[in-house]
Structure formats: C-alpha cells, structure tokens
C-alpha cells in the first residue's frame, strides 16, 4: 500500500476491490511493483505506459493483456496463479457466481484483484471525487497537478476520505493534508 492511501483502505491479499479511476489503480499497483512483485493488467487497451512508469510501476515486471476478448476470465485465472496483483477491466457483465469463483482462487493464491468496472461482492470501492486540475490557465500554462478527494466506500462501514495530490507537482502522489493545514493557518493569520 502506498502510505498516502494507507489510512483509507488496507488491501488484503485474496480480496477484490473496485477502483474507478486509472490513476488510482496505478498508485495502488506501484507499491507492490516497487518491491519487486509482478503485476498483470488485463483488458486495459488504453493503458498510458508512460504514466504507469511515472507512477512507479516496474514495466519489466508488468504483464499486459490488452484485449483478452471473451476469455478475460480465463486469462485472469491463469495469471492469478503466478502474479500477486492484477488489474482487470472486464469486457462483459460479471455474474456473482463468476466473481465468487474467482474470489476463491484469489484467496488460495494470495493475490489481489483491482477491478475497474462493476464487480459483485467486492471488499471496497475506491473512487476519485472533486478533481481539480492546477496549472492550466485558459490557454496558458499546462496541466501540472491535480487535487482529489479519494473516497473509500464499503458496506457496513462509514465512508473514508483522503485528500491527495494525484499527481503532485514533483511526485506521482502526495498527501494534501499538510498543505490544507498550511493554507488554513494562512487564512487564520490573515483574518487575524
């Protein structure tokens, strides 16, 4: 887990998580990839390779199956056996029976599944809210950083949120908390 997201959710091995946004998936996958783990990406034909590398993925240990077609489940099942972290974008509606069958396999192999799309029975759902891009200014500048609120929803527990820079100016991810404090302090100072 990246420390910035550790307060939100603890990814368990054997669990499946729904993650809605690509940059968030990349941030979650970068942590195991940095420690030398293999990562598999199934069904993501529009993966931005450069962004993945910038996020911290080790491309030499990244397996991509861009277009598995109807055999996406079989491909994932084969990869679960050997890869500890898998990012899946299913190409069809997933039935609960399928999901639970795969969940059993994930538990046996101690792998973690991140799904971009509908997934019955996932442990938690992570998504980005209120994204704000900084840097672009009506024809001037360029996109530099994005302030987001990451929300983690799980059944039977209150939502958790975290404020992050994703990406930050000089890093792929950074907590925005301190900056918020600073700005609040500044506001306090200004107002008296």
């Amino acid at each position, binding site marked *: 887990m990246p420390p910035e997201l550790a307060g939100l959710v603890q990814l368990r091995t054997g669990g499946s998580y729904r993650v809605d*946004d*690509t*940059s968030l998936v*990349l941030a979650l996958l970068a942590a195991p990839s940095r420690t*030398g783990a*293999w990562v598999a990406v199934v069904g993501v*034909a*529009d*993966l*931005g*390779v*450069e*962004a*993945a*590398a*910038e996020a911290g993925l080790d*491309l*030499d240990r*990244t*397996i*991509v*199956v*861009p*277009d*598995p*077609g109807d*055999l996406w489940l*079989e*491909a994932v099942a*084969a*990869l679960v*056996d*050997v*890869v500890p972290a898998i990012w899946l974008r299913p190409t069809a509606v997933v039935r609960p029976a399928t999901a639970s069958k795969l969940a059993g396999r994930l538990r046996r192999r101690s792998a973690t599944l991140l799904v971009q799309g509908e997934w019955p029975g996932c442990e938690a759902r992570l998504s980005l809210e*209120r*994204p*704000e*891009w900084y*840097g*672009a*200014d*009506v*024809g*001037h*500048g*360029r*996109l*530099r*950083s*994005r302030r987001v609120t990451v929300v983690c929803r799980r059944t039977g527990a209150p939502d958790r949120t975290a404020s992050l820079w994703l*990406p930050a100016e000089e890093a792929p991810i950074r907590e925005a908390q301190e900056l918020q404090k600073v700005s609040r302090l500044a506001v306090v100072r200004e107002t008296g």
Partner: protein
Amino acid sequence: MNTGSAPVPGGSRGVVPPSSGGSAPVSGGSRGVVPPSQNRTMVIWCPDWPATAAALDGGHGRDVPLAVLHANRVLACSAAARADGVRRGMRRRDAQGRCPTVVLVPANPDLEAQLFEPVLAVVEELRPGVMPLRPGVVALPSPGHFYGGEEQAAAIFLERLVEHGLWDVRIGVADEVFTAEHAARQVGIQEHLVIPPGESAAFLGELPVEVLAAGSGADGSGRDGMAAAELVSLLQRLGLRRLREFAAIPGAGVAARFGPYGARLHRLLHGGAGPGVVPRTPPPERACHEIFEPGLASIETVCFSVRRTAERFVAGLADDQCVCTLVEVEVETDRGTSFARTWAHTSWFGPTDLVDRVHWQLQGATRTGLLDGPVVRVRFTPGTVEPSADHADALWGSGSDERVERGIAKVQAMLGYEAVVRPVRQGGRGPADRQAWVPWGDRGVGLRPVGPPWPGSMPGPAPTRVFPVPWAAEVADATGQLVRLTERGVLTGEPAQFRQTPPQGAFRGGAWQSVLNWAGPWPVDESWWEGGSGGLVARCQVVDAVGQAWLLRYAEGVGWCTEAGYD
C-alpha cells in the same frame, strides 16, 4: 534412390588431363615462385543441379529427359535431354521440338537450395567447414590429411555422395576455389581431378577461354557470370583462344582494359592466391529435428511429441556451455509445405519455451491456413547462441520469475502469442508514439530511443489513458462556432465546449460538455517529413466541467480528436 546400381566411382585416376587439351597440364611449369599452398581446396560439383533437384522432387528417374525453364528458356537439362539435343538457353518450343518427351519444369531456386542441404550434410559429415558456393557447387578445405592423400579423399567423397543417391558428381582439388571448380568441370561423371600445389596457373592456361562463361555464376546470372560472358566475348574478338594467351598479356594494363574480373583472373593465372575457403559456421550441427511417421494432425500431440527433441536441443547446447536466445522453428507437413519462424527470447530458451513456440507457430499456421496437413517434421535451428555464463540465474529470486513465465505461456496458449505484451516506453511526440506493446518473449525491435529530447512532446504528467484509436471530437467556442487552428498555430476562438465520441462502451460521450479550463495549443511539426497530410498539428489540454482532463489533437484537414485522457 539408385544406390544399388551405382558403381564405385573413379578410384585412382590420379591427374586427369583436361579433356580439351591433349597434354598433361603439369608440363607447363609454373611462372615465378609459387609456394605450395597449405590451404588446399576441394570443390564438389553436381552438374545441372536445377534439373537434378527437379528430378529428385518429381520422382523422375535418371533416364527421363527433363528441362528446367526460366523465362521460357532452358536453364538446365538432364543428361538424357541433352543426349536428345536439348541445350541450355534454348527456347521451350525448340526444346520440345528436339525431344518431344521432355518433362518441362519451372525453375525453383528455393527447392534447389533445399535439396542441396542434405548433400551439404553428407559432405559436412566427412569434413566440417564447408562453403556452399551455390546450389550444386560446394567448396571445402581439402581433407587430404585425413584420408591418406587427396586422391583417396576425393574417391571417398564420391563414394559417399553416390551412396547418398547422387549420380552425377565431380570433384576438383586445387590451391583455390576457382581452379578447383574448373578442375571439377574437366572430368567425367563420378571422377575427380587433383591439380598439384602450385600447378594451378599451368592447368588454367591450357583451358580454352570459353570455360570462363561456364564457370562461376554458371547460368550467366549474377555479377561474375555477366563479367565472365563479356570477358569471353572480348577475348575471342582479340583472337585469344587459351587462357595462357590471356596470361601472357603484361599485367600493368589488364585492370584498365579487362575490368576487375579480368584482373582477378589474370592474377590467378599468374599463380596469385585466389579466394580460399571461408567455411560456413555450421549451425546445423546443433540443430535438432523430430520426424513423425505417420504425420500428426493434432497440435497437442505434436507439442507433446516434440518435447524430447526440445530437451535434446537444449542439452546439446548446454554441453557446449551455451544457451540459445534466437531459434528458428521449422515445421513441415506431409504435403511438403514447410514454414519457419524465428523466435527470440528475452533470456534464453528452455525445453518448455521451445514447445510453446511450436505450439504458437502451429496455432498461427492453422489460422492462416499454412498448416495444410499432418505435421511430419519439426526442426529447431539455433539462430543466436550465447555463452550460458552470460545468462546464469541470479542466486535468489529467479525461481518465481520462471513460474511467472509459465503463467504467461498459459495465457499465450489461450489467446495467441501476440495477446500478451510487455509495455515499453519509446521516444516520440504524441502520447501514442511514446509507448509500444512488445509481445511477451520477443525483444522489442525498431523501438525509438527514449533518450534524446523530442521537440513537440507534451510536458508534465503523462496521460494515464492513451487511446489506441483516437476518439472523434469537436471543439466550439461560447457561441457554438467550431474552433479551428489557423496556419500560424492560433485557435480561431476560445474553446468553451467540446464533445467526443468514444468508439463503444461510451460512458460519457456524444453530448456537448463545457470546457472548464484549457491549455495550449502546442503546435507540432510532425507530419511534413513523414509524407503525411503536411498540415499543421497541435495539441490542447482540456478540462471538462466534472474535472476530467483530456488531450485533444487538431490536424489540418482532419479536425479534432481525443488522443488521451488524464483519468
């Protein structure tokens, strides 16, 4: 083939005088000081090889008149056809007129080379380091030492080749390839001629100039063949009959008057060293193949049966402390179709890797229809062999990688070889140019270096989604007027709304969205030298109302499209 009836060849014929000249060539004496060469050369010549190959392929006997045609002219003919008056260079109709029963076959250089391969193997068994000159002619370092003399060696070679099923084989031995080939051309079927060391010039001198045209590049094709034909014609017009007379011309002006080919020949006639034998490195030594009798129709069965051969192949290389990183897998069906593909491996091939490659190749061939019958042969030929020390496993941590490779192979077996890829970065301007998929197991070929700066590439964080096929898009200003880019790279209006159409599975497409913020345009001169539309190309970053950012591209004449998204 006709091994039973084949007589034991030539025996001890010793030095055979050239058929044209009456006297023995040895008598001429050598000009100047010619040191006896250590590197003697043997040339084995199978005359009319195109015809022989066609006869072997078609199952025709030796007595069948046969002619190989190229561009409606006879390229080669069998001895039987020649006896009926068919000659090289004759038109099809004339050949049929002389010999109505002649079997006409179109020229097939691939087949000629293919059928010559087993002949090379027979020769290589006796003496490694052969240098095939062209199908039908092979040179090798003379193996006299091993057989008690060159005469004996030639006799043994002839015997083995005749046993192999060749009928018309001739051998010449001399100091260099040129002389040895001409020596071979001077003898009869299954005979040999040895030119003693230093006697090459004398031997060649007695030959009529016409032999040059029949010599290297025998069919008048190729550079040497053309040069030889021209030289022969020139020498004839000068009234020179024998090569000796050509040799008598003072050396200084030869190159200027007769060209490089003539000059080289002149040097040879004066006893200068010609090209020696450059032995081909024998990869077939390490090649392995498996023959299935009868052929196997199921891919699974082939893969199962080929496993032992794959293990033997890898073990054979391992004995030499080598591993193979590039391998050619050749598959042959019972209809005679054979197809080969070269496979590279990121580290090196183990037996299971090889079996996988066979599997993929067969699958691919089934899809393309190349696999037209049961498989009768699978052959592995090493392409690149590297010392295994360079590829030694790391002390820790390689075990799990092997496991991963197995999983990948499983997926590849399911979806096809190209379906599993390794993401690679490369140099380029647009986001799609800056990345590539390399099939797992292949090395990336033709990738642009990431290193040097690419002017016009986008600064800042890279887009997380790069669409393989850009989405069609439109950009308009506040009044609904479509925004374009002028020739000077300026937008005609301020983007206020845009819409994009994802190809399918559109979750937010089609409708107009307002532009919250935007940056750019960054003009890129990328197409003018690539022969593209030649127009201006520019990129814009656009943030929509919900805070999603997109990278849009404008190309003159094409309009806007969405190339990438900052998801």
